[in-house]
């Protein structure tokens, strides 16, 4: 299990570092016509990014 955790953390870390810093805001609700879907959104990446940003802003 530890091996999987290490792999996942490395993957998330590289994904966050390679991603553009400012994500364009979505308009409208999910499911509406023309609105952005939640496909590809990973809550783990959101949590890690949030914690990292709040740590760096201290």
């Amino acid at each position, binding site marked *: 299990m530890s091996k*999987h*955790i290490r792999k996942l953390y490395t993957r998330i870390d590289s994904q966050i570092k390679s991603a553009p810093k400012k994500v364009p805001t979505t308009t409208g609700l999910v499911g509406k016509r023309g609105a952005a879907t939640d496909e590809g959104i990973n809550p783990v990446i959101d949590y890690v990014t949030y914690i990292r940003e709040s740590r760096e802003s201290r």
Partner: protein
Amino acid sequence: MPILDKPDLLDAPIPGQALTGEPGAYPWEQPPQLTTVDEAVEHYIPMFNEEEILSGVLSHIEGGVALATMADLITKGGVMTGLHSIDVGIMVAPVLIEMMITSADAAGIEYTIGTEPKKKGGSTKVSIAAALRESDMEPMIEDETVLEEELPEEEMEEPSMGMMSRRSV
């Protein structure tokens, strides 16, 4: 025989042993209480505000335990108590690692995540001897030799001279 040097092989469970117990007897065989990553994060994050838990975590980090290993232990505990499934445990682990980094940074403690590339070589006999010399510690082997010298030799039992006893050559 090299196979006997590994006691784990002999202590391993018999194939199918897990199926002999009553189903649902253990907490991890019950439906998990927290089914999503969000719920698991909500459960684990407040732990880092408790002084007792935080001091324990920080002392382990200071001792050189990798953060990935710590996250593994914490999530495995959650699985064992039936809080969440293994999948949710793995998914929540990076969040725990990130929280531990924040805590270690705030406390000014150096840490290793566990994803760093391993150094080639590792500890050799020479490096161990050098470390012992630096710490002014005597190697344990010397003490053992002294103990062996102090121990009295066991007296040899005289062979029984019964009719069925084997003759010594």
